[in-house]
């Protein structure tokens, strides 16, 4: 999985310039339940990854999220 | 409206009773009513003891416990249940339906129907009709009809019209197809112009609950109720029963081409002893044919009273033999329904006690 591309897409969802792997998601301005929904949709449509509710709630950093999507990627 | 059904049977029944028992003699001290008059009321209405749930206990708790007992005893198999029909007026939540909750808690299959119907004391007979209807679908072989309420939780302790009367219980009735193809006759009427005869004014969307609706008000004759409590117009109900129920049963018997003499038992909803005695008198049905002992043992358990009548009076017999019965449910809505069928021999008929875990 191209992680750079993933972080770029995540930045678009959060309406921000850039997302770094070490960024804590909860501290990012745009990270709310709508962003979560957009990420789930992104994971499903672009990566074929189906992520469970408790899995996404457990991620802390952007890198965690990228790794989760990669692990579920078809 | 008349109906005919064929090829259906009740294969098993259970009633689930909460452990807590209240005694009228203890409770009458709470009423603003002279003791002598309370005792007279006890005699007439059949008040004696009743079962009520603990605070926080819901219909799904009783139903889940009862069904789990049936699974554990090998009387019912989880995977065979194709539909749960829950007839209740005291649902766990506005959303989701309580039958879905029961399905989830018991781990039943996804490929089934869960249906909540809001029906009062006519709800056992109407529930049976619904079950029969569902069994016409090829994929539906076994329907579990659950009737039950925890209405004691909405009765005002200062209302002696209703408080000493209400009992909580859940009944479980397994309905399946029957090879014998015997005819079942039924009829049903409804009158919404008298819907407010039995009502909880607040709590729904028409009048949401507020601190105001919890305040007790004097509704006459020294009875105190809040808008959050259940209100029953006793004399309106009595007049309704005396006027509408006899013609309903007469019409049912006539349609089926039979008479009172050919019916083994009349299994009626049990509003209170007085009302049922008057009904038997009016229809000239001997008291032995119309059991009238549910209220004095368990209280008025809403749409579960007919299953209670069976469990209390015929539990052994109905597992051994057939009985030709006329069932009649009548009450809130207003709704009144009756059904003529052969009952038994059932695979099981059992009484299950529910002890609330703290």
């Amino acid at each position, binding site marked *: 999985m191209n992680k750079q591309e993933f972080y770029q897409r995540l930045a678009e969802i959060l309406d921000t310039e850039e997302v770094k792997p070490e960024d804590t998601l909860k501290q990012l301005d745009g990270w709310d339940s709508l962003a979560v929904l957009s990420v789930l949709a992104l994971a499903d449509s672009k990566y074929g990854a189906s992520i469970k509710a408790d899995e996404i709630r457990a991620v802390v950093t952007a890198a965690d999220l990228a790794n989760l999507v990669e692990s579920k990627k078809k | 409206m008349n109906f005919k059904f064929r090829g259906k049977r009740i294969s098993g029944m259970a009633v689930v009773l909460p452990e807590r028992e209240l005694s009228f003699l203890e409770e009458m001290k709470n009423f603003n009513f002279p003791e002598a008059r309370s005792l007279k009321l006890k005699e007439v209405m059949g008040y004696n003891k009743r079962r009520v749930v603990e605070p926080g206990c819901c219909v799904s708790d009783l139903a889940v416990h009862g069904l789990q007992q049936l699974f554990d005893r090998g009387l019912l198999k989880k995977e065979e249940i194709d539909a749960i029909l829950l007839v209740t007026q005291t649902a766990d939540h*506005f959303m989701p339906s309580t039958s879905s909750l029961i399905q989830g808690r018991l781990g039943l299959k996804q490929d089934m129907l869960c249906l909540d119907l809001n029906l009062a004391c006519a709800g056992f007979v109407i529930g049976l009709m619904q079950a029969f*209807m569902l069994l016409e679908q090829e994929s539906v072989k076994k329907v579990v009809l659950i009737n039950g309420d925890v209405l004691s939780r909405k009765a005002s302790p200062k209302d002696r019209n209703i408080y000493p009367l209400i009992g909580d219980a859940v009944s479980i009735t397994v309905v399946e197809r029957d090879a014998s193809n015997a005819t079942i006759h039924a009829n049903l009427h409804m009158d919404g112009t008298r819907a407010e005869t039995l009502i909880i004014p607040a709590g729904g969307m028409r009048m949401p609950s507020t601190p105001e609706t919890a305040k007790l008000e004097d509704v006459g004759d020294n009875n105190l109720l809040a808008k959050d409590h259940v209100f029953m117009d006793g004399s309106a109900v009595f007049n309704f029963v005396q006027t509408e129920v006899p013609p309903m049963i007469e019409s049912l018997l006539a349609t089926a081409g039979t008479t009172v003499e050919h019916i083994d038992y009349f299994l009626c909803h049990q509003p209170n002893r007085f009302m049922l005695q008057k009904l038997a008198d009016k229809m000239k049905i001997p008291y032995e044919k119309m059991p009238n002992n549910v209220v004095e043992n368990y209280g008025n358990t809403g749409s579960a009273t007919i299953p209670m009548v069976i469990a209390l009076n015929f539990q052994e017999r109905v597992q051994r033999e057939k009985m030709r019965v006329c069932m009649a449910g009548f009450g809130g809505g207003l709704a009144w329904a009756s059904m003529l069928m052969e009952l038994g021999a059932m695979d099981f008929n059992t009484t299950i006690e529910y002890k609330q875990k703290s």
Partner: protein
Amino acid sequence: MKCVFKNKKISAVISVVPKEELRFDDEYPNYKLTEDKARRFKKMMSLDRHRIAPPEVCSSDLCQYGVEQLLAEGTIKKEEIGALLFISQTPDYFIPPTSNVLHGKLGLGLDVQCFDINQGCAGFPLGLMQAFMLLDLLPAGQKILLLNGDTCSKQLSNCNRISYPLAGDAGSVAIVERCAEENPIYMDVKHDGSRHTALMVPAGAYRMPSSPETMKLREKEEGVVQSLEHIHMDGPAVFNFTMSDIPAQIEDVLKFSGNTWESIQHYLLHQPNPFILKQMTEKMKLPPEKLPSNVVSIYGNCSSVSIPLNIALNCGDILLKESRRVLLSGFGTGLTWISMVMDLGPLQVCKIVDYQAAAK
């Protein structure tokens, strides 16, 4: 549970919405949203406007108005009504059933049966199932009024920035009757109560009765204000539900009914929001024109009335003249999901009207 019905049809559908149209652009300051965040939210969910009932108007009022319109226009006669079904999760009372109250208000006969069924977004196909089954018990010529109605706005805070903008109140009335044509209807019903926390109202009924405590507003996350008497939604759980269970059921029903993805002319789904619907459309590889997703932008998410609104808004004109092969799918609280295939139309009536309160 699979069902097949024959010789049944829907002959008319009328949807009733509150008269006042509320626009997102006017409301967003209530939600503590900056203009920028509001713009993004509006774009993501294609928000525009919705209809909210005034406090004194219940879903039964909206449905009653629909029935009165059909009677007044002569689409149905009172004596033809054999049963009235009221499907809702926002009833007038705990007791008596709302269908009985309507029975009284409409002056229906003693032979008319009434049923209150508790169901949300799957409530239109569920109600159809009940109506189709009941018709086999009724004498020839008798018809059934299927009423769907919810006022979910009463179960939300108007400061809830995620849910309130999407909420819509509405009622619908469908006339369901027998027909000479076989017109087979195929339906699949599924439930999963183990996931009920995904969409529920925790307090207000018997599990947790109403109290000052349950009425207190709490902030779940910034701008998401709710009490225990409000609708609680687990977004990710609902998303996963819509993306996996519904497409699987739709595929199953297509096979069961002997159809292909192409043979269905219209996919008329419950409308939770356009974002999820677009995801589902992509997942099922359907052309967007076949799966409308525009109801929320105009009326909000109207629970089980979404499908009747969808039908009228997107196929109303066609269905007044011709028959179309449609797939209807309702899904939501329970969790419950029900999909069905049928030939719909031509309909005598297929429209959306504004609610007019009766003159006092």
